[in-house]
């Protein structure tokens, strides 16, 4: 009757019982009351499946008993729940029916029943698709079932058939066990990697070893001073949260309103960082990864704040060390200060003079103060261009030719018109 679970080593337990629910097809009692008993002790980590069967009043000739059972996820398909024992006419009618979701839910509905929900008992049934498969009516949830949640299917025969047992609904429970909770995800890197950062630092990049859970993230991130006092609201808390698409990197912006400007202190909260101070950025281990498992350890970075950097970047003054022709040695560029890591990796490119872009691998080292480029093919002697997009930033958000803070009332027109700056160099 029950299809074996597809998972190796999984066990199923089943007991038939008459549902204790009688009168109403709209079941509103707590699950603990109506939960059918499971037959066997179940091994941790397996699908738990309980089912209920109702025997209709014996007609002549005897009809097969109606039953409601869960089909565990298998072969890439989500879990489903199906009603067996429906008559051929009934199945034909249901197969041809073009019901909308509310109509199906009048007699066959499935509830997700999370523990501790404040609206318990008032939660609507979940969405999914209803269809006749073989000799059964099946409900397929639209989304995969969630570990740790009990799902309750309720089928009210009376809505589809003229049977004396019409008012006796069938129920079947299904629970996906909570996943094993071995914490393995870590903060794998925090950039900038230097331990002396300008007091007008604009952002951190937090890298994680696995995808993380988004939403309500700022409570897991703390900035504390040397005395361990928490710096109040240092970050720009935006609901959109600046994640990389795979959610392994978070861009954490310091609130531009909390960045110290000149000698003037900001009102109320004051600046987040002040030159001379020592600070520790802490990522709480309580932060769950995308699988809902907390981090294996806190992530921390301690640094000292240096005076503000308000100088625009000028690639024409960067030190370029050209490798020898015929080699695949790295082209090394030293900007004289640390660059924003993500932008330095993406916005500095190498072109043959008047020719195509040179392909290769980029690496940043020495606390993002050294940019190196190893070409895929050996260097040919000749002239080249290092092309730097003007939107590249240093640690304080200064661009090429434009500081982060622009005093627009005097200098609104002070802009670099080009989108990039080309710096020539030669290889011999």
């Amino acid at each position, binding site marked *: 009757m029950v299809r074996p679970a597809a998972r190796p080593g999984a066990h199923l337990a089943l007991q038939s019982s008459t549902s204790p629910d009688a009168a109403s097809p709209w079941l509103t009692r707590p699950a603990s009351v109506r939960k059918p008993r499971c037959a066997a002790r179940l091994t941790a980590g397996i699908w738990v499946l309980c089912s209920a069967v109702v025997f209709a009043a014996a007609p002549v000739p005897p009809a097969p008993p109606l039953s409601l059972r869960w089909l565990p996820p298998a072969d890439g398909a989500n879990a489903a729940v199906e009603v067996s024992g429906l008559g051929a006419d009934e199945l034909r009618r249901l197969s041809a029916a073009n019901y909308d979701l509310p109509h199906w839910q009048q007699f066959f509905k499935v509830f997700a029943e999370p523990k501790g929900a404040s609206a318990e008992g008032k939660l609507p049934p979940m969405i999914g698709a209803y269809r006749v498969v073989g000799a059964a009516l099946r409900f397929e949830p639209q989304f995969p079932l969630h570990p740790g949640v009990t799902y309750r299917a309720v089928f009210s025969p009376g809505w589809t058939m003229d049977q004396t047992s019409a008012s006796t609904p069938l129920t079947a429970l299904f629970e996906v066990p909570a996943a094993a909770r071995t914490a393995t995800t870590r903060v794998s890197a925090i950039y900038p990697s230097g331990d002396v950062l300008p007091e007008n630092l604009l952002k951190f990049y937090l890298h994680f070893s696995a995808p993380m859970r988004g*939403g309500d993230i700022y409570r897991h991130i703390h900035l504390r001073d040397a005395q361990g006092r928490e710096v109040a609201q240092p970050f720009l808390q935006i609901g959109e949260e600046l994640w990389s698409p795979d959610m392994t*990197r978070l861009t954490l912006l310091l609130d531009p309103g909390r960045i110290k400007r000149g000698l003037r202190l900001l009102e109320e909260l004051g600046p987040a960082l002040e030159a001379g101070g020592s600070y520790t950025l802490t990522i709480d281990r309580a932060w769950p990864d995308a699988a809902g498992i907390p981090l294996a350890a806190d992530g921390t970075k301690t640094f000292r704040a240096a005076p503000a950097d308000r100088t625009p970047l000028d690639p024409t003054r960067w030190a370029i060390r050209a490798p020898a022709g015929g080699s695949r040695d790295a082209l090394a560029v030293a900007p004289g200060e640390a660059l924003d890591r993500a932008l330095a990796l993406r916005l500095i490119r190498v072109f043959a003079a008047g020719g195509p872009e040179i392909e290769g691998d980029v690496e940043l080292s020495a606390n993002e103060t050294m940019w190196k480029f190893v070409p895929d093919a050996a260097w040919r002697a000749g002239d080249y261009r290092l092309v730097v997009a003007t939107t590249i930033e240093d640690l304080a958000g200064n661009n090429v030719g434009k500081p982060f803070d622009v005093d627009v009332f005097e200098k609104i027109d002070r802009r670099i018109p080009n989108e990039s700056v080309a710096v020539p160099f030669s290889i011999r």
Partner: protein
Amino acid sequence: MKLTLPRLAAASLALGLSVLTTHAGVTAGMTEGAPALKSVGPLAFGPDGILFAADTKSAAIFAIATGDTKSAPNAAQPLKIEAVNEKIAALLGTTADQILIADLAVNPASRNAYLSVSRGRGPDAVPVIVRARLDGQIEVVSLAKVMFSKVELPDAPVDRVVSQGKRQSNPRQLSITDIAFLDGRVIVAGLANEEFASSLRAITFPFKQAAGGTTVEIYHGAHGQFETRAPVRTFVARNVGGQSQLLAAYTCTPLVEFALSEIQPDAKVKGKTIAELGNGNTPLDMIVYQKNGKDFLLMANTSRGVMKIGTDGMERAQRIESRVSGTKHETFSVEAIADWKGVEQLDRLDAANAVVVRKATNGALNLEALPLP
């Protein structure tokens, strides 16, 4: 959440017949099918039940004809859905901590509220649009077969894959912080996750094949004489003396005004900062409404609650050009609405009411209609 011009909806409703005729116009260029949303964030409504949904992962705006164009009758009770997050989670077969509600927008044609929801909080989260009907029922909006169109944002972050140590990646992404529909254009505020630059784009609707968006940098005077490129958090559009204006709220709550006509390709717009509403605070959402013949703004904030801002006198506000101590708004009124606690999402329901999503004392999120203050 963004309403745009309240009068637009009112006009559409008043001209009952024109709704049908307009409808053919707004679906021009749309195709029937399932819009492939990779994520869903800010929402806004255009005319005739056209829902604009911002998809940050695709760096695109979808326009979806909801077909929800009939005004719902008033329910016996004011709209209130308790624990709406738990109920949406139940619809989606999961738990409340596994969903995120990104935005709320009321369809002015029907007064049904739409919520953008992520089922899941990791990279595999599934975007879902949920409709909360005026009668208190919630349902998932089926996107299996709808008329829709899509426009990709110019400067979408696909410009270059970085190869570092033979690993190919491009983690750059553009976050869309707010959208609105105004005068036939979708206005999009965005922020990249690498370059620190706030941008506004105006995209003509119906969308053209080539995405003719424009990028505008906004400067505003705050934190002393200096300007920053702080991102626009939320904005509303309003009509002042026949001119369309955007009022943008930035982090640290400066309120900045500029004319919509200034949003031109590659223009550098210098916004006029007309108010500083306090430090250490981030605006969440903003609507504009009328009461007793006057325009008001309602702004929900992270730490300063809900503020009611009278627009009377706003036109006389001087450009703020010097450092502001605390708050500054000399020519118009700003009033804290103490009763509206915990508001996280906000939109205008009709002429007299707003819809909010707000956190109750037990931590659950309630969706409810509240009379406009």
